[in-house]
């Protein structure tokens, strides 16, 4: 549904998006992950026809975003990062205006449907200016789905919301993902992990990793890490570190919470070896579990490598 090929956007000498290529299939929720200033918003603005790319091209539902902009705009629902609302209008008035701009038939029914979808039927007559941040966000979403577009592009839909509202928006996005292609950006990694079918990590305008969250984690989890907690009378840390370091294949032992994080060479599973070593030393083994690398760790690792490269150049 969304196809981006070698997309580049420069502002003067600054390159916001650098030779970016990716694809989002029909009915897929694509998480667009990256730190602030990574080029997420710029990419979305190009896809929605707000600004033209400097190089490369992109299509939405087969239409070129630059040469067939009007068609693309009909097929995309877009919620910009700062939800663009008119404070003087009522929720219903705003949505009807949006529906009229899009020239969709059965406007009243569509407005009602969109309001129902974001659970705001009871606030239809409220003035936008009197709405809380969370409700405004929902009006923004209602605006994006009013024409039931096949493609939804949401720029940081959960930013600035309280935890309960974040959950509500996430479940809404998940639900919309059942019958829409959704591309949404976030810098919260757990969010992408929870909602997305696929994640695209971008940094300094370039894609640095892509794939389903699970695969990404498996692929990038290079080092086998386990958490070990050892009990017993003597809890002298140095002694325990020495004990663990003697275990074959152990690369690094670090204190972590009430135990140790042990990293093995070459991603080996060293749990049996550790268990044996600890019991042989006559110590009770209280806890031994693999430390799953979160997307957060992956992200930090990948972007750090990049920063070092950039800094060294």
């Amino acid at each position: 549904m969304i196809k981006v090929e070698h997309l580049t956007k420069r502002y003067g000498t600054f390159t916001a998006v650098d030779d970016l290529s990716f694809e989002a299939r029909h009915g897929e929720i694509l998480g667009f992950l990256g730190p602030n200033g990574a080029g997420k918003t710029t990419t979305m603005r190009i896809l929605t026809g707000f600004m033209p790319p400097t190089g490369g091209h992109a299509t939405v539902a087969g239409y070129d975003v630059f040469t067939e902009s009007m068609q693309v705009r009909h097929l995309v629902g877009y919620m910009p990062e700062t939800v663009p609302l008119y404070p003087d209008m009522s929720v219903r008035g705003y949505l009807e205006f949006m529906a009229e701009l899009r020239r969709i038939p059965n406007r009243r029914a569509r407005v009602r449907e969109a309001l129902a979808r974001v659970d705001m039927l009871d606030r239809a007559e409220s003035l936008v200016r009197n709405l809380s941040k969370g409700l405004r966000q929902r009006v923004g979403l209602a605006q994006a789905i009013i024409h039931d577009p096949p493609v939804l592009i949401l720029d940081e839909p959960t930013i600035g919301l309280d935890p309960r509202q974040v959950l509500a928006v996430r479940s809404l996005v998940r639900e919309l993902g059942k019958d829409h292609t959704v591309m949404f950006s976030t810098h919260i990694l757990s969010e992408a992990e929870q909602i997305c079918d696929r994640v695209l990590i971008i940094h300094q305008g370039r894609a640095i990793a892509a794939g389903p969250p699970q695969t990404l984690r498996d692929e990038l989890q290079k080092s086998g890490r386990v958490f070990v907690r050892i009990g017993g009378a003597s809890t002298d840390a140095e002694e325990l570190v020495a004990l663990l370091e003697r275990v074959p294949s152990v690369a690094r032992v670090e204190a972590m919470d009430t135990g140790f994080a042990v990293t093995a060479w070459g991603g080996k599973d060293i749990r049996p070896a550790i268990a044996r070593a600890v019991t042989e030393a006559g110590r009770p083994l209280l806890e031994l579990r693999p430390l799953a690398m979160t997307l957060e760790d992956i992200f930090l690792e990948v972007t750090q490598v990049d920063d070092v490269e950039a800094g060294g150049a």
Partner: protein
Amino acid sequence: MNDHQAESRYEVPPPALTGSVWAIFKRELGQYFVSPIAYFVAFVILLIMGLAFNAYLEIWKDQRTTASAPALVGFFVSLMVFMAPLLTMRLLAEENREGTIELLLTMPVRDIDIVLGKFLGAWAYYTLLLLVTVVYQLILASVAQPDMGAAIASYIGAWLYGGASLAVGLMFSALTENQIVAGFLGLSALMVMFQANTFALSISDPNLRELVRALSTGTHYYRSFANGIVRLEDVLFFVFVMAGALFVAVRMVESRRWR
């Protein structure tokens, strides 16, 4: 065959003849009646017009001259230097500041539709203000015998003059995110245009002087419409000012895409 052509194409609504001008026009005109500034402007204009009307009545009575309908309209026109920026400074500057322009520019709406819709909304509101002043003409007609033809000519002129002034104001609103800056620039430009025939007096080069005089909005109103004459060249002048200012405004809106 391109692989993106292989993907099934979705149906989109055919382009509408008038685009989305009508939707934007309706919203803008409605906005004048939900924001206090429009009521305030209407109130002040009527108040000032009332004061002027009474003053004119006194003058006509004292001098025993014929009551002139265009005089009052001419006074209304002179207010437009201040009123047009007030009425238009919000139109695009607010969208630029609030970020709602991003939404409009990603709607299936042409840039020119946005500008035209807003301009026509402002012009319609202005037309309502102008029509309200007809009250004074009716009062005048009940106590004197003013020249009705001249009155109508002066209204046609005031309507065109107002359109041109609003277009200039809208152009400056498109330029900036700051309403005050938009209003001030619009006011300055309209002032210079209004007084260009006076400023031209200090220009020594005769050709340039004539050119500047020819560009004076004041001259194009007061030398013809104010005397009850509708001249094609003056009509065309205001139409060109409108078209030119709106063209620049569309370009300004377009340029938001490149920043």
